[in-house]
């Protein structure tokens, strides 16, 4: 996955992501594609959650999957969830949950609960940094005010790191793939460098759906695992989703 929160010269925030999933879950040797990824793409749907006849929040889901991996609460905040690979990962958390230790939240249920309960960026950040969860993940959060963008690095039981957008230091975006921001990504999966290169190339002045879509369309940020690209603008409550395909030659991840 690749998630980006960026702001333009006027401080208007954009939040976008590529959702990559299906690694090592069946390789189609004939078509050179990941099997599960190919089955997931037709399941992509936009969901408009309503209450009292009004939009409460919006998300991009796979039909049949009820958690929230990409969501926007109009005029409040945006959230995306990226996987964080760890040997003490969700498998352990899930086993503990099955064995009866149920104090932790499922990671994508927590994001839905946050969408439901929180009404601001600060409230969302508070819940995402403090609650116990079943799997280590990255929560990428965007708000409505200039500078409200952060990558929350979560362990199952504790907060590991918050990388907030430091606008006083001239930062205008935060970007997360699937590796801790304080370490170098592995040489065989350095999508971070490519995405940052393209963000820096397009520059702060050009920030908007077209420029961010370009970044998320550049290989290997776009790769064989990419199921969809979602673009969100919180003030307008806009959510645009595109089912992706990566023409050959395209890296498997």
């Amino acid at each position: 996955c690749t998630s980006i929160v960026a702001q333009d010269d006027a401080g208007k925030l954009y939040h976008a992501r590529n959702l990559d999933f299906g690694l090592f879950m069946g390789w189609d040797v004939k078509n050179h594609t990941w099997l599960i990824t190919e089955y997931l793409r037709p399941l992509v749907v936009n969901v408009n959650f309503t209450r009292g006849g009004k939009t409460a929040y919006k998300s991009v889901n796979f039909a049949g999957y009820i958690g929230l991996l990409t969501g926007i609460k109009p005029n409040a905040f945006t959230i995306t969830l990226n996987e964080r690979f760890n040997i003490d990962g969700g498998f352990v958390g899930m086993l503990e949950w099955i064995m009866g230790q149920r104090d932790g939240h499922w990671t994508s249920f927590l994001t839905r609960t946050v969408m439901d309960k929180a009404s601001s960026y600060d409230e969302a950040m508070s819940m995402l940094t403090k609650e116990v969860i079943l799997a280590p993940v990255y929560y990428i959060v965007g708000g409505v005010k200039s500078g409200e963008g952060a990558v929350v690095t979560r362990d199952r039981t504790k907060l590991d790191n918050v990388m907030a957008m430091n606008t006083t230091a001239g930062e205008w975006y935060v970007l997360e793939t699937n590796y801790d921001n304080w370490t170098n990504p592995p040489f065989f999966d350095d999508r971070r460098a490519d995405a940052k290169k393209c963000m820096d190339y397009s520059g702060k002045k050009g920030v908007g759906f077209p420029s961010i879509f370009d970044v998320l369309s550049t290989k290997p940020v776009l790769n064989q695992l990419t199921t969809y690209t979602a673009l969100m603008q919180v003030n307008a409550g806009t959510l645009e989703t595109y089912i992706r395909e990566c023409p050959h030659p395209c890296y498997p991840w």
Partner: protein
Amino acid sequence: NAQVLPPYTEDCQHGMYANHARCAGMPPTFEVNLDQDPSVRWNGVVQHKKKELVAMIGQIKLLVGAISPKIITAVDQYLPELIQKLPEPYGAEIQGIAKASGLPDGEILLFNIFYEIFTV
């Protein structure tokens, strides 16, 4: 310029948004009414995507079954009990999706835990 050897990096792309390049389309939008009972609120989505959901679960079962067929037996036997332990409204939503799709409760739960367990 594109690199012809892995990892196939390329120059930063331009103008992709205007013509929706490298896209296979835009997904449909559905309403999920939170005022409705959790067991029926996903019915609209499932009715439209039932065929694709059944195919997806079938593929997961093939992959998991290749490791051991006993895993699928366990999924069908034990996971439904765990749905009762999920916080509301999530348990009822999973049961509602299973009912609307005609798939076993445990297999819908299996699909929903995939993202949690594959962080390993």
